[in-house]
């Protein structure tokens, strides 16, 4: 491992990680704010630093089609996209899990149009949350690099063999220069075994993939995929433990910050947790018993780990970066509420939507949310609070 961190744009760090993982195929279409990732990969391939086929496709639908094909042919496959690009992939995204093709995709999260907006929120990933992909969220630059390496290991594990999306906040992560510890190729190779596909297109033993599933088999094919996705959680945890042995950095499917004795827990995903930690430190200095529970793993939802992390809290403030139009809760809050519904003792759960389309999320927002979450009747509010909306 490099002794000293180097200053590096997070997008470049992600591309370097893909190179260190010896990806065989990169098929991608550039879209802001993912562009630097695929531009740099294209350079690495052109310069001979990454021995891979770089396929400059004509659309994201083609990108994902190519990725599924190359993964089925046994190639370690990577792509990256954002927002409208992810939306254009939609049809193919639902196929990869059932075909058990472990494509790794980094999503530089960006708002969906309309109005057209290039900035960060989570509406892109939430629009495909049911597609059957493993989904991870990174918080900072080092995590983005580490999770890229982990993504290949998790997705390609024969017990998983599912596509995986690694979500990094657009601009907030993708375009920031952060101190990065860059592992060596040898260190990554020692951690990441060669890709040995469980479903493979092979001339010597031909198979057909992408078949028709009639009413007699569709249900069972979907169930088989759900079983595989649900079972992948164990492999994710094992991969995190193994990563710690190799690189010293420890990750969990659900992360907690000063939450052990917290009366109010802020629930969130992604890079805003960095700002939230600063706010929590300030509030703790004033005697406020507040902490953070952050979902690193979004799919499969780590229900048991999440419940264990929030069990003791009086108030849960669930923060969403996406609005589910026509429904009174954001996507994370909807799920958290449903998981806790059957519990005899459950916290007061209130929901806050903020940081849409690149709107800044500040320390003051977390102070405000903590105050609101403690108010009597916070758990009975009929809908989410849209923090900072000008009405």
């Amino acid at each position, binding site marked *: 491992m490099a002794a000293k961190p180097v200053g590096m744009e997070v997008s470049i760090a992600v591309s370097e990680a893909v190179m260190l993982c010896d990806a065989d195929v990169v098929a991608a279409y550039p879209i802001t704010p993912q562009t630097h990732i695929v531009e740099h990969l294209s350079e690495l391939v052109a310069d001979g630093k990454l021995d891979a086929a770089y396929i400059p496709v004509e659309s994201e639908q083609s990108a994902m089609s190519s990725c599924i094909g190359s993964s089925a042919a046994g190639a370690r496959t990577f792509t990256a996209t954002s927002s409208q690009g992810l939306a254009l992939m939609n049809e193919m995204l639902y196929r990869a899990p*059932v*075909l*058990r*093709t472990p494509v790794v995709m980094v999503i530089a999260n960006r708002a969906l149009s309309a109005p057209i907006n290039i900035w960060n929120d989570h509406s892109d990933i939430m629009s495909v949350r049911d597609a059957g992909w493993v989904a991870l969220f990174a918080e900072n630059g080092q995590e983005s690099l580490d999770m890229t390496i982990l993504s290949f290991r998790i997705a390609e594990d024969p017990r998983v*063999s599912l596509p995986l999306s690694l979500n990094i906040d657009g601009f907030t992560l993708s375009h920031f220069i952060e101190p990065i510890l860059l592992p060596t190729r040898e260190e990554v190779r020692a951690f990441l075994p060669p890709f040995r596909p*469980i*479903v493979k297109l092979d001339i010597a033993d*031909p*198979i*057909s*993939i992408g*078949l*028709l*599933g*009639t009413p*007699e*088999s569709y249900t*069972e*094919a979907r*169930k*088989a995929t759900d*079983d595989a996705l649900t079972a992948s959680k164990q492999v994710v945890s094992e991969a995190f433990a193994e990563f710690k042995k190799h690189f010293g950095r420890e990750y969990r499917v659900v992360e907690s910050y000063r939450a052990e004795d917290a009366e109010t827990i802020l629930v969130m995903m992604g890079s805003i947790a960095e700002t939230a930690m600063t706010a929590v430190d300030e509030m703790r200095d004033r005697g406020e018993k507040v902490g953070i529970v952050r979902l690193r793993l979004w799919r499969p939802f780590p229900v048991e780990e999440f419940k264990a992390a929030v069990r003791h809290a009086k108030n849960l403030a669930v923060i969403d970066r996406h609005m589910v139009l026509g429904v009174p809760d954001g996507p994370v809050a909807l799920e958290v509420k449903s998981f806790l519904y059957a519990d005899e003792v459950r916290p007061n759960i209130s929901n806050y939507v903020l940081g849409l389309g690149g709107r800044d999320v500040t320390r003051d927002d977390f102070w405000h949310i903590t105050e609101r979450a403690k108010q009597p009747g916070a758990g009975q509010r009929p809908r989410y609070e849209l923090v900072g909306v000008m009405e």
Partner: protein
Amino acid sequence: MAKQIDALMKVRDLPVGFTAKPGSTLEFKTGDWRSMRPKLDRGKCSYCGFCYIYCPDGVYQDMGKDEKYYKPDLDYCKGCGVCAQECPKHCIEMVLEEV
């Protein structure tokens, strides 16, 4: 392996990745989807091959220069009627499939 296409299967018996051996569609006899069946009047047939070319499922077989007509494989013909529509000699009639 191809049985998954139209037979009930348990989750644990499905091939991983929902795959099949190549050519398994041959085992998927779609003829029973048919409600109308093409009936050929060989006296009017000019052996032009339009039915063979237009058939979206490729079920027409060339019976050769001696027989001089094309015959649909009723194991796979879905009864769509494209052949009857396109036949320039109007020698194909779609008749009700009697069970």
